[in-house]
């Protein structure tokens, strides 16, 4: 094998300019795929972590069966009672992968500063649980500031936050007092005072002038219930989401609880849509890169085979089998793929570091604040691309070399 590698290397250096251009084509293709792949991965991770950790929605959401289809119209019918909450927490405690279990209740109502009133979505959360979830966020989400002002506390009922748009809309900055009004479970109007201590950005731009964030106790008092509408579970490992969902569904059914469990992917349609869009762009890019790489290698190998037809005839006369001829050119092509991919990996590293050093920023979908532009380095994908490029190079070389290997030896020897 050493001899054939030596011949392949020397033939590549003999036609150095042609080899360099082919290696560059492979390298640029490799880098394009991996830089874009790394950027897409960074975006996916941001969307995923934003939903799971920053918004505190966790990996799994638990609702009363039917809540997602009919609960928005008649919330009261689909609330999870206090007794059911205890049973859910007991079942969740059996699964060591579940790190945080938190309940939430959201209702719609009005917010007023005494002069201006507007519609608001009142979200009641446990801030200790939300803090626990956010503390586990890594990457881009881990570096984000979630609010301006003071943190909310579960044990101080009247403190709350307004989304920045809502705060502006009703002219109620941090430090001001507002009144939140909503119908109770029984349908009577109820109102509670809230002191604004923080502003935050809604993850959805359209809702940035609508959200009031309060403690779970506050919203339960306003709604006059001890029930909640959702449980959010944070897992230690995102990859275990499906398995834990299945296990919980079984446990709930066995306990007689009519609940449905949804994964973060199902509850975050934006993630799916953005991923789908990036996948399509990636597929188009990949096809273009593939075409360029294939055409470059085919051109190089076809030229090599044509120029060395007489050499092929000599090797066949010396006793090299047809498979040996194919192997010789396959090694040559594989080296092109390998060198191109190695150079491509270096270009990818330089591009990733360059982007980091450039400290670029942008506002991605589902975000209202600027975040840094980064490209994730994914060694697994780079190795996969390398293997693919080498395999592709070998496959592409087989066609012309197989044809040459099947040539009549006398014709090959007589080739000018």
């Amino acid at each position, binding site marked *: 094998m050493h*001899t054939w590698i030596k011949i392949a290397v020397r033939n590549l250096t003999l036609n150095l300019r042609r080899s360099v251009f082919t290696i560059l084509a492979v390298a640029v293709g490799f880098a394009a795929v991996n830089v874009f792949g790394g950027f897409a991965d960074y975006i996916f991770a941001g969307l995923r972590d934003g939903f799971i950790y920053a918004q505190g929605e966790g990996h799994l959401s638990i609702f009363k069966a039917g809540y997602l289809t009919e609960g928005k119209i008649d919330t009261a019918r689909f609330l999870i009672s206090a007794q059911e909450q205890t049973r859910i927490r007991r079942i969740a405690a059996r699964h060591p992968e579940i790190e945080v279990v938190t309940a939430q209740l959201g209702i719609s109502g009005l917010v007023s500063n005494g002069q201006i009133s507007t519609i608001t979505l009142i979200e009641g959360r446990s801030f200790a649980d939300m803090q626990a979830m956010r503390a586990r966020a890594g990457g881009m989400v881990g570096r984000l500031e979630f609010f301006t002002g003071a943190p909310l506390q579960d044990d101080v009922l009247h403190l709350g936050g307004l989304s920045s748009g809502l705060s502006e809309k009703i002219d109620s900055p941090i430090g001001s007092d507002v009144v939140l009004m909503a119908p109770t479970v029984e349908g009577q109007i109820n109102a509670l005072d809230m002191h604004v201590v923080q502003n935050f950005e809604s993850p959805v731009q359209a809702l940035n002038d609508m959200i009031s964030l309060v403690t779970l106790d506050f919203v339960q008092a306003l709604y006059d219930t001890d029930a909640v509408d959702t449980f959010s579970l944070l897992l230690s490992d995102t990859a275990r989401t499906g398995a834990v969902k299945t296990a919980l569904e079984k446990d709930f059914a066995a306990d007689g609880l009519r609940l449905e469990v949804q994964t973060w992917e199902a509850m975050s349609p934006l993630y799916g849509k953005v991923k789908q869009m990036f996948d399509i762009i990636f597929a188009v890019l990949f096809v273009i890169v593939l075409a360029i790489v294939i055409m470059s290698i085919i051109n190089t190998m076809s030229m090599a085979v044509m120029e060395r037809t007489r050499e092929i005839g000599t090797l066949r006369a010396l006793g090299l089998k047809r498979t040996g001829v194919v192997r010789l050119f396959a090694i040559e092509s594989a080296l092109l793929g390998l060198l191109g991919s190695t150079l491509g990996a270096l270009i990818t590293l330089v591009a990733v570091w360059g982007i980091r050093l450039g400290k670029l920023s942008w506002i991605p979908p589902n975000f209202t604040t600027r975040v840094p532009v980064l490209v994730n380095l994914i060694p697994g994908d780079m190795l996969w691309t390398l293997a693919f490029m080498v395999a592709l190079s070998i496959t592409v070389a087989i066609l012309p070399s197989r044809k040459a290997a099947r040539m009549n030896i006398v014709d090959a020897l007589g080739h000018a």
Partner: protein
Amino acid sequence: MLCKGDPEMARKLPASEDHRASPIVRFERVTKAYRFGQTRVTALRGVDLAVDRGEFVAIWGPSGSGKSTLCNLAGLLDAPTEGAVWLNGKDAALYSDDQKSRLRNAHIGFVFQGFNLMPVLSALENIMLPLQIFGIDASAARQKAMACLAEVHMTPYATHRPARLSGGQQQRVAICRALITNPDIVIADEPTANLDSAAAKMIIDLMAEMNATRGTTFIFSTHDRRVIENVRRKVLLTDGRIEDDVIV
């Protein structure tokens, strides 16, 4: 002794039971025609010829007489259109392409008019090539190739690539490459055509020595008087037919 070759490769050609009695190469009513578009050109017309072991034969005649075609068929590089080529008593048509490759590698040596050395390999590496195709490890192949180079006084040029060698030097390397496997037959197609007189004489003497000491069969295709005068059998081909067959 010139280029002892490799004992691992010194197996006899696969043959019929009475191979000792049969010629090493026999042509039986061999016709070879080529087709160029609509035109059919017949290079050999019903040739009958037998070459025994140890012979030193020149196939000679004018250009286009079919000399090279005959050599190509003897070297299993091509197949006849009609008739049969028998190699050591066995019809060559019965061999698969891979079997023919193995036979060429281990038992047939080739010397070409244009030397046909691999341009990216040194003189030494070119000589090692048939052994490495056979599967012999590089160090053993290198040792044998160096010995062979020494025999043809080419040791100082071992690391030189063909482009840096003269025609005579290249042909000496090509002969070493042909002999390194200790073949039963060497097919030499116009081996001296591109050489000056001194180089041609050295090449002819080299092959004559190999024939005399090893008993290797040599079949030349040539119209070079210098070769024809040194062989022991002269087969004259004209228009694809044997016109004369003289043993000196």
